[in-house]
């Protein structure tokens, strides 16, 4: 028997999730369709920001509940004793909180957009076209004569950002016992403050000042230096690497979990 990843056990873990959370899932699907329908009822304006906000906020609430079993010791014991590997439990959690949730939002967004726009046209006698702004690529923008791609595809970009947030909150859900959302947010704020302080000291070391006061605008960056391309590559690597990094930390946290 494959003791690391067994497809049958993985299937059983998914079955377990959906049977245990059937009511909650159906409710959430319903609410999300209603929200997206209402969002698109009023008109054809750009809605992708609102949709992305809804995706991120509902997503991290969902992710922060991934290991909610550990909030109550007997439930945590029950979860840890399910005959499946830690890896299988983690893979299930990742698929549900990231891929399934994103797919669910896309499906409900599509249904909501079609329903909302159609009903809006019907009730308000308008002729708005059905537009899926979330699926459309963002336009390139130019800095110092360089074309900066918003990762080419807006949907992929949204997904990467979403997966990053989910991975952080999933780690938070196993790291903190109780109120994982609040504690994870506090941890993010604390880390941001530390990074901000480091940034300020780097500024001092690099430019001899704690605040730039617009000096950056005087910097001459020529196309030959290709500074933005390098920064973009590093940023992309960090962005992509952070997600599996948080997954790996979650895995080790799960293997070391005691109740």
């Amino acid at each position, binding site marked *: *028997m494959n*003791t690391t990843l*067994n497809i*049958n*056990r993985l299937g*059983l873990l998914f*079955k*377990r999730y959906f*049977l*245990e*959370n059937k*009511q909650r899932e159906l409710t959430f699907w319903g609410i999300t369709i209603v929200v997206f329908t209402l969002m698109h009822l009023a008109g054809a304006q750009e809605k992708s920001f609102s949709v992305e906000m809804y995706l991120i906020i509902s997503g991290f609430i969902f992710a922060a509940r991934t290991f909610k*079993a550990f909030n*109550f*010791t*007997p*439930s945590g*014991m*029950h*979860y*840890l*004793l*399910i*005959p*499946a*590997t*830690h890896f*299988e439990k983690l893979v299930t959690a990742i698929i549900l909180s990231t891929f399934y949730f994103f797919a669910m939002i896309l499906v409900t967004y599509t249904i909501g957009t079609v329903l909302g726009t159609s009903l809006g046209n019907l009730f308000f006698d308008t002729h708005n076209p059905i537009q899926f702004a979330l699926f459309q690529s963002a336009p390139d923008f130019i800095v110092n004569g360089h074309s900066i791609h918003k990762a080419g595809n807006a949907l992929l970009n949204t997904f990467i950002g979403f997966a990053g947030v989910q991975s952080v909150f999933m780690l938070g859900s196993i790291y903190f016992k109780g109120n994982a959302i609040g504690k994870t947010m506090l941890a993010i704020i604390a880390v941001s403050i530390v990074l901000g302080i480091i940034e300020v000291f780097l500024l001092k070391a690099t430019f001899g000042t704690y605040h730039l006061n617009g000096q950056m605008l005087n910097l001459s960056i020529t196309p030959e230096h290709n500074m933005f391309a390098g920064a973009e590559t590093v940023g992309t690597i960090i962005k992509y690497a952070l997600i599996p990094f948080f997954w790996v930390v979650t895995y080790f946290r799960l*293997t*070391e979990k*005691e*109740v």
Partner: protein
Amino acid sequence: MVNVQNVTFSYTKRAELLSNLSLTLETGRIHGLLGKNGEGKSTLLKLISGLDFPKSGSIETLGFNPTKRNPDMLQEIFFLPEELPQLALSIANYEKVYAPFYPNFSTEQFNAYLKEFDITDKTSKLNKLSHGQKKKVFIAFGLATNTKLLLMDEPTNGLDIPSKGQFRRMVASAIDENRCLIISTHQVHDLDSLIDSIIVMEKHKIVFNQPIENITKKLLFRVADRNEKDESVIYSEDTLRGLYQVCENTTGEESKLDIELLFNAILTKKNKIVKLF
């Protein structure tokens, strides 16, 4: 089946809950794990099943290191905790979800045990059942998994009087030479005529671990006259029914084990009793 060697465990750095504890458990037996509150009985069960990790020493459960929580080991363990998990599932769905994880699970047995406990409606939601009812479902499920190792922490807590008898009957019929059951309890009367090995914990250590046949061979349990003087008496309790005594069995006479009396005798006259074994 279970081999615990020199295990030390603590939740905090200051107080050790288990101290250099060693224990070997054989298959085919129902072990009664007795001890006062806070001695570490539940913790020992958690360590055996891999829910907690020892600070030092080693544990082997069914040939596995329990801290790895290998599914091959977990599918041969069922742990019934004192407090039960909160699950928004019907009994039927609980069976549907969790039974496939246990290769030897028997639906027939599960239904028979539920019937014996007088639970007929499998559509009832677990989180809507009373603690006692829920416990019955988990006992029935645990026995029906046919796992090699069954760990039960205070299984009779919350059960009504008839159910305690049903529990004893079910457990007695479910155990065979391939299975091992460890029952942690301080309700010793509930285990009367059920357990066949007694483990006593005191001051975070195992101070006594003997099969019943050894105990009754070495010790005599009797009710004596208050005026009777006997040098072989190790421990006695004065009750309304008479003087309950634990004596050294020098004659080879058979007597019925009184678990509560033995437990109290071990706690008060530990050295004298341990020396006999």
